């Protein structure tokens, strides 16, 4: 019933769970409230910081990976520099002009439009969570919001701002 593969997975799960429990117990800040109040809160919200532990581990591993890789290559890598090696790499061609070129305004336009529609997307998240509670009222509300921005989208499209000319 419990073959080797399942056993390893089981041991790993118990290990991760015990770390989580340890972290949750240490970071619980809700002890000053009476028991009934705490029981009314859904458990996944009470264990807020504990549930963020994987993200914290990811950040730590990512930062360590960057630092350790750079440190190791600077410590044990050979350093014999020549003029050609130190030249900036431009797809194997000879570098032309300086690296500090002025960029086209077209990039700025794309970035600006990206931000504006990004903010529109941010408003969709709370609406999506409340979708069932708001019902038709919420649908109409968000419909008006999207419609006004859709006018902007049509304007951008018709003016050719999305084209790279």
């Amino acid at each position, binding site marked *: 019933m419990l073959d080797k593969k399942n056993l390893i997975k089981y041991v790993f799960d118990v290990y991760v769970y015990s770390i989580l429990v340890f972290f949750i117990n240490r970071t619980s*800040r809700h002890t000053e409230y009476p028991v009934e109040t705490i029981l009314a809160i859904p458990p996944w919200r009470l264990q807020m910081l504990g549930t963020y532990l994987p993200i914290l581990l990811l950040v730590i591993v990512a930062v360590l990976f960057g630092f350790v890789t750079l440190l190791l290559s600077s410590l044990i890598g050979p350093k014999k520099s020549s003029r050609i090696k130190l030249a900036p790499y431009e797809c194997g061609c000879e570098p032309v002009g300086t690296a500090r070129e002025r*960029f086209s305004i077209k990039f700025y336009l794309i970035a600006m439009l990206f931000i504006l529609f990004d*903010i529109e997307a941010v408003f969709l998240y709370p609406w999506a969570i409340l979708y069932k509670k708001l019902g038709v009222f919420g649908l109409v*509300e968000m419909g008006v919001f999207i419609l006004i921005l859709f006018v902007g989208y049509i304007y951008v499209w018709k003016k050719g701002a999305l084209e790279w000319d």
Partner: protein
Amino acid sequence: METLFFLIVSIVAIASAVMVIACRNPINSALSLILTFFCLATYYVMLDAPFLAAVQVMVYAGAIMVLIVFTIMLLNIRIDATRRHSHMIFFGSIVGFATLFNTVYIVMKSRAATPATTVNVEALKAGHTELIGREMFTNFLLPFEITSILLLVAIVGAVVIAKKKI
């Protein structure tokens, strides 16, 4: 444990904020600013505000930073140009200190108004994102719809300013 974590994040936040104004290369300043934004997102998580944390990373560390980096690349600031504009440091520090005093004043005032333990049980029961949504789609319905007009104006403005031939 949490106090220790808070201290570590604070040190990183202050160090990266100092790097923003101390770096000579504007691109380095922009990258330090991303780190500051991530520290702020961590604070929001610690204050039980995960929606704000997500918005902080998505809009500020993502979109606004793209805009700042593009602006730096557009303006093409040379490193030796910083010496010519040294008189701006004086006016910049006046604005900076005014903002600092303003922030300290608001924090002191709000701390006097609310009790020391600020764990909002109501917010935890309903969930932070749902609470924001409920307020936004009922009490603040008109401001929410006006936001779309504001975004529309910004879209039109961006096209008019940045497009060569309209």
